[in-house]
């Protein structure tokens, strides 16, 4: 006598759900606005955090670690002047064949003392080939006074503004550089300040000075290099997979005593920062999504329970409970999607705008300089982050409607119809 040929009617259900959603325009609008503002806040916060950490990492990679570095293993334990790379030539030859290598700087590095007539400081002296170094680090573009080492002259040295200020030096001042040479004897010479630089990291600035490699090797009475720094062409700040892949290729031409490390191995703190950033972003998102879920659950409880009689009528006239469940879930999903899509659209606009203008850090800049953060931040949000947020809103919208939906569909039609609300 009876047949169950009830088809699934997505367009009919979707139409009904959408119109039901706007039955109480004020209530739905308030919820959608709350979602939009909440989402923009969360996305900007995540964008700010990601931008700050990515900036810190970009600066650290640009100025300090490069993407890869090669050292003698002994040098990593104790940076002594004799612990040079045994066979730099095969590495340099191999690197010259690889197109994704933007620059390679072979450095002769000594720990020494820089003395002015007024003061002295311990410092790391980087003996570099000026042109090669300029392709690996942004130092040549960050000379604030004077020029880079390429300018010439006898024994030029480039120091940071901070070191100049500490040692009371000016452009053209003479400084004396002393260090222990290969024979453990003190060696030294006078250098003239050819340029002052400023990096985003005040700690880096205090600790590094640059001279020409040939000047330093002549003083040390040693040839060779201690460090090969390798910079790759543009890559994702937070991803070290390309660096790792290149490290594997290089290891085949390395002498057993030499070792290649990627930037996360050189500064494990950077990997920790990335992990911590992911965690803090997840926590922010989770708090927002939980609050959103409770908000939607509240709206859906009201929207569903005030229509109990109507659902009873739907059951009476033959709507199966599966479809009633579908209708309620669809209403909640449409509410979540409306808020999420509007919120994410506005977020993309805000992030794009701030990505152009940047956020000036003002008085915070000095403090953050110690962590290598630039004075202007550019928030960034990955597409995956937007998609994850959207997916979480969808899931939480459905979860939020489950309880009210269950309360309705477990009723008999006659009981539901007996309810005034």
């Amino acid at each position: 006598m009876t047949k169950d040929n009830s088809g699934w009617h997505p367009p009919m259900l979707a139409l009904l759900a959408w119109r039901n959603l706007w039955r109480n325009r004020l209530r739905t609008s308030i919820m959608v606005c709350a979602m939009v503002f909440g989402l923009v806040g969360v996305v900007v916060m995540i964008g700010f955090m990601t931008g700050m950490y990515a900036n810190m990492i970009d600066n650290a990679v640009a100025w300090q670690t490069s993407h890869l570095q090669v050292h003698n293993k002994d040098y990593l334990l104790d940076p002594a002047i004799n612990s040079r790379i045994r066979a730099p030539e095969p590495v340099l030859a191999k690197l010259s064949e690889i197109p994704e290598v933007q620059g390679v700087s072979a450095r002769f590095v000594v720990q020494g003392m820089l003395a002015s007539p007024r003061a002295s400081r311990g410092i790391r002296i980087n003996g570099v080939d000026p042109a090669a170094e300029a392709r690996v680090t942004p130092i040549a573009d960050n000379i604030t006074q004077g020029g880079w080492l390429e300018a010439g002259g006898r024994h030029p040295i480039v120091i940071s503004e901070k070191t100049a200020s500490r040692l009371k030096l000016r452009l053209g001042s003479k400084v004396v550089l002393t260090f222990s040479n290969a024979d453990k004897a003190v060696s030294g010479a006078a250098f003239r300040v050819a340029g002052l630089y400023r990096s985003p990291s005040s700690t880096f600035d205090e600790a590094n000075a640059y001279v020409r490699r040939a000047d330093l090797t002549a003083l040390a009475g040693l040839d060779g290099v201690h460090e090969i720094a390798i910079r790759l062409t543009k890559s994702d700040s937070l991803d070290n997979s390309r660096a790792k892949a290149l490290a594997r290729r290089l290891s085949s031409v390395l002498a057993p005593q030499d070792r290649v490390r990627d930037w996360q191995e050189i500064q494990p703190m950077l990997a920790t920062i990335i992990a911590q950033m992911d965690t803090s972003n997840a926590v922010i998102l989770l708090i927002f999504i939980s609050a959103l879920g409770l908000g939607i659950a509240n709206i859906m409880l009201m929207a569903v329970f005030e229509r109990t009689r109507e659902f009873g009528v739907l059951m009476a006239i033959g709507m199966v409970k599966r479809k009633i469940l579908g209708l309620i879930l669809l209403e909640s999903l449409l509410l979540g999607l409306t808020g999420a899509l509007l919120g994410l659209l506005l977020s993309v606009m805000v992030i794009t705008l701030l990505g152009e203008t940047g956020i000036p850090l003002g008085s915070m800049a000095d403090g953050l300089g110690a962590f290598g953060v630039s004075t202007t931040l550019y928030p960034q949000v990955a597409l995956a982050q937007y998609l994850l947020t959207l997916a979480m809103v969808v899931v939480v919208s459905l979860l939020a409607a489950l309880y009210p939906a269950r309360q309705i569909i477990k009723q008999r039609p006659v009981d539901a119809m007996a309810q005034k609300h």
Partner: protein
Amino acid sequence: MTIAIQALTKIYNPESDFPVAAVKSLDLTIAQGEFVAIMGPSGSGKTTLLNMIGGIDSPTSGAVLIDGEDITRLSEQALIAFRRDHVGFIFQDYSLLPVLTALENVEFVMQLQGHSEAECRERAMALLTQVGLTDQKDKIPAKLSGGQQQRVAVARALAPRPRFVMADEPTANLDAKSTAELLDIMQSLNEQEGTTFIFSTHDPRVIARAKRVIVFEDGRLVEDRRQ
């Protein structure tokens, strides 16, 4: 189609100290094409009886046989399908879906049945023409008068081509003119399509038009007359 009610009993709160017997061991037969009014005072059990015949409430004991099949033994799913395909419901408060237009409300149950869009549209338009609301088809219920809403409800009840239509006090909220119009429509549908109509009512205007009047009191049938 024949509705045969056998020893039908409904007791609310049977386990409590104060059980209420709404319908007491009722036997009744309603044949195809009847136009039946069930009358009686409030609380006499009219609505409970209609709900059990329509399969939206279950009896404490007894049987409701529709063409020999006892609907009180159907599974929940089968009962929902039974109501959808074989019973038309008209409620006192119209109970149209407020977000759908008159036309969409009439199409709704047919869509639940799985009919094509064109079929739904064609039959819904034909029914709206029969109840005289073609020009109001795109209005939502809130934009229609009570009488118009109840006429849409009649069209909706008939849309799935039910075996019978249950109407619980359909004219309770209508004025005299609307009541007369509604009764004309229902009577002509009863005569033209042979659809069985079963009403519960207090309304003497409805009782006057019924072909059979069943008087119900305190859960029992006290009079069954044909007129």
